[in-house]
């Protein structure tokens, strides 16, 4: 088979580019802690009441001697619970782990302008951890079509300075 020398050069260059792209993703994983959602656990979407999702909200936990927060969120037609009628309030510079699932149809949970972005799939629990670096508000958007009022589904994450965090709103 005859491959022109320019084409041989181009193919080598292409392989280099492909290797480079894969390397950037691996670098993001190991050095920048840019993880993606994985396989966490399945859940009965019709039986969420019997799980922590039955009392959704922010919980305080102690892990390795440090205070951290866990947020259980139900996404449903057409609201985030919590998030829509009351904001999800968490302190800045603290580890926060989100657990997200849906009792009805597919939804999205996207913190606008960030890479906190997951599908919310009935039967699956999405779990991810983050640290919000500064006190500010973020919008939450449902970014998967979920029915005729999909466009009104929005919410707020309110990040407050650690010192101003009001623990009376926590869920037991």
């Amino acid at each position: 088979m005859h491959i022109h020398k320019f084409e041989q050069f181009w193919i080598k260059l292409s392989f280099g580019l492909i290797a480079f792209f894969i390397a950037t993703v691996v670098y993001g994983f190991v050095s920048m802690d840019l993880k993606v959602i994985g396989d966490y656990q399945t859940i009965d979407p019709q039986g969420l009441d019997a799980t922590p999702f039955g009392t959704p909200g922010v919980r305080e936990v102690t892990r390795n001697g440090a205070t951290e927060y866990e947020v259980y969120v139900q996404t449903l037609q057409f609201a985030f619970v919590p998030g829509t009628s009351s904001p999800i309030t968490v302190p800045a510079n603290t580890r926060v782990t989100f657990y997200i699932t849906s009792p009805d149809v597919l939804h999205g949970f996207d913190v606008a302008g960030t890479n906190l972005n997951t599908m919310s799939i009935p039967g699956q629990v999405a779990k991810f951890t983050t640290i919000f670096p500064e006190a500010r508000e973020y919008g939450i958007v449902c970014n998967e079509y979920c029915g005729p009022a999909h466009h009104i589904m929005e919410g707020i994450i309110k990040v407050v300075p650690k010192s101003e965090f009001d623990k009376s709103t926590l869920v037991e």
Partner: protein
Amino acid sequence: MTFLHHYPKAAKVAKANFIVAFIALAIGGFFGFVQALHRTDVFRGFFNSGEYYSILTGHGVLLALIFTTFFIAGLFVWGVARSLDREPESMAFSWAWFWLMTIGLVMAAVTIIGGLVPGSSIRAAVLYTFYPPLQAHPAFYIGLALVLVGSWMAGLDWFWSYKEWRKDNPNERIPILTFMALFTMMMWYVCTIGLALEVVGLLIPWSLGWVTEIEPLLPRTLFWFFGHAVVYFWLLPAYYVWYAILPKLSGGRLFSDSMTRIVFIIFLLLSTPVGYHHQYADAGISVGFKFYAMATTMLLLLPSLMTLFTVVASMEHGARQRGGKGYLKWIGKLPWDSPAFVGCALAGIMFAAGGFSGMINAGMNINLLIHNTIWVPGHFHLTVGTAVALTFMAISYWLIPQLTGRELKFKKLALVQPYAWFLGMTLMSNAMHRAGLAGVPRRTAEPQYSGFEFEPIFGTMAEMDWQIAIGGTILTISLTLFLWVITASWLGGAKSDKPVDDYIPEPLSGVEHTPAVLDNMKLWFALALIIVLLAYSFPLWEMVQDGIFEPGALPRPS
């Protein structure tokens, strides 16, 4: 003498497919126009925001599934008949698959349009990905299944022609136009296994009420088993045009026969086991499977980059044949006044841009920044919406005259059309990409929220909305020009024995340099099946461990 006179039967079948394709293009394109105005809040008088999703479903199904499939069928009927020098083996069989696909399409379309009729219980506002538990009318799924079965039969039709041709030509190499068509169809057979399992095995029984609960992740995964390869099912026929016809339109010939075949083989092998890259943000699929899909996806850059080389090299050769000189000055010698050439060339340029945004999509962790934002439609309006759609439109200016025996009318309008498409898409797509970076979601009637504002990195939200609305309007004008030119030429073009120059020269590096193993279809098909089994069998097996319909969710009306 042109195609119509040599192969009148094949011309009839091809024309029927093109008519359906262009009607779908007209309706689906108009839906896109009103969506662009609605989303950006420029004009919301056509329908209310709840009905937006029926319109959006129509846009996706009619353009991504119907326009493409019928156009591809017409193109391959032309290519197979011409390169094997045979009429279809049985007209009854050809019409059977054509009508099966058409009946299926009408069924699906009726359920979608039903959503716009107040009080109608026949609805299918489930978008073209139709993720359960949102449920459409059963006729929607059954209609899509018929289109699928029809497309399988169409593929069989071409394999049948090939088999008969082989009896008469035992020692010939597979002609390149047939080779590319058959390999595209083999890829189609591999990837549609997932869709058939999903629609026939899960969604049809569920929509008929035979089972009540459904596990949302399993059908979603089966959809994406099919859902990325379908992208290549659209793209490979555009490559077909770029490899086989574009070099001729530029005044030259294809650069290399063997590299063309290798590219199609790689697509057959790697198009399907990449589906998880649409599910990077899904819970319930392990990071390992996602990583495997990502590496495979990145490898798929190779055949596209090789195509870039071949296309540019073939065009440069053509330009030099026409007297082009210098490192870059030859570009000016290309036939920038030929609508078919201009459309293909501009489509190729936009595909390069779309390829770059696709590399961002493919990067597993970078993807989360733009997953399900309007960046993604910004990306695929460059790929399927331009690289494929504009190539199909452009090559119609060259194909339709061969099929009708009539010359093209309104050549000036035909020449304006691809430039207008390029301009409109540049405006619309750049704004969609940038809005996506700010977090603006796709698939929504009103991306304006009460509790917060998006913070764009470059530009302002208002400016992006206007670019989307104006870009969408220019695209609609371009589409109208296309439909006008084609309809006028089809019905009223001057009759001619030779309406276009349809001679296709031999490649520069011809088939005599191509290793015989590249034509071994059984080998490559078996290998493709093995790779897909390796990628999907274990994760799917894991997913159905707790029962095919567990953990089950109840259906919701769309």
